[in-house]
């Protein structure tokens, strides 16, 4: 039963991912991306990672979708994906080979029994990985400052005002 649930969620996510990639309109692709986020967060919740599921749902399906819609509204007519440079059959064959190889390499990891050394999330995050937390905080601030700088409109300079 659990396998069927996981299978349905992940097949849905893979289908949405494929539709997001092949759809010509970026707005449609944005909606498909939000669906992938929702399905992946449901899978994460079933896996027992409720904290990450909530973050994924709020950030992936919420914030990133809003930003993508904003970007599409700004770029307007350019929100169409032109035909690919690499022939699609070649890309498909290459990716198929890589995916099969990845599957063969990753599959034995599932069968390995590693001893249980469970650490609570709070200890893992706030004690063992405290440096990562500080880096995350710095990353968030730098991201906000970068976006403020990048999205700012170009203001007319003093010389332009004089000429006008």
């Amino acid at each position: 039963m659990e396998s069927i649930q996981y299978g349905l969620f992940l097949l849905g996510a893979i289908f949405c991912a494929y539709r997001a990639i092949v759809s010509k309109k970026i707005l449609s692709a944005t909606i498909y991306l939000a669906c992938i986020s929702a399905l992946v967060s449901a899978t994460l919740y079933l896996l027992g990672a409720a904290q990450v599921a909530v973050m994924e749902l709020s950030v992936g399906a919420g914030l990133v979708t809003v930003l993508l819609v904003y970007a599409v509204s700004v770029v307007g007519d350019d929100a169409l994906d032109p035909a690919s440079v690499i022939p699609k059959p070649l890309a498909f064959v290459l990716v198929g080979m890589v995916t099969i190889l990845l599957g063969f390499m990753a599959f034995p990891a599932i069968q390995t029994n590693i001893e249980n050394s469970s650490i609570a999330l709070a200890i893992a995050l706030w004690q063992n990985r405290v440096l990562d937390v500080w880096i995350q905080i710095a990353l968030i601030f730098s991201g906000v400052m970068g976006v403020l700088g990048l999205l700012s409109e170009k203001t007319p300079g003093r010389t332009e005002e004089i000429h006008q």
Partner: protein
Amino acid sequence: MFTPLNVILFGVVGLLGVGFYGLLITRNLIKVVMVLQILIKAVILALVLAGKLSGNMGLGISTAATVLVADTIVAVVGLALAVQVRRRFGTLDVPKISTLRG
């Protein structure tokens, strides 16, 4: 064969495959950011799965949260860059942008 963890592993590999395919065939800069998002979702799932497999769920969740934060910043900055590129060069086509000067 079809245990829950095997199914999740197949899902992760499938999402990664679709993401790689998208990276190869996509030319629009905004869509490249979207494809990166798909790849990162697969990675987050793989990290939580690894945590579950090793019996160290706390470490898997905290690592996935770190990746999620970094991924969001990548998306935000990437989209802002795409908007600025569109304003400056008038196109979002990656091959055209890479041949432009100025």
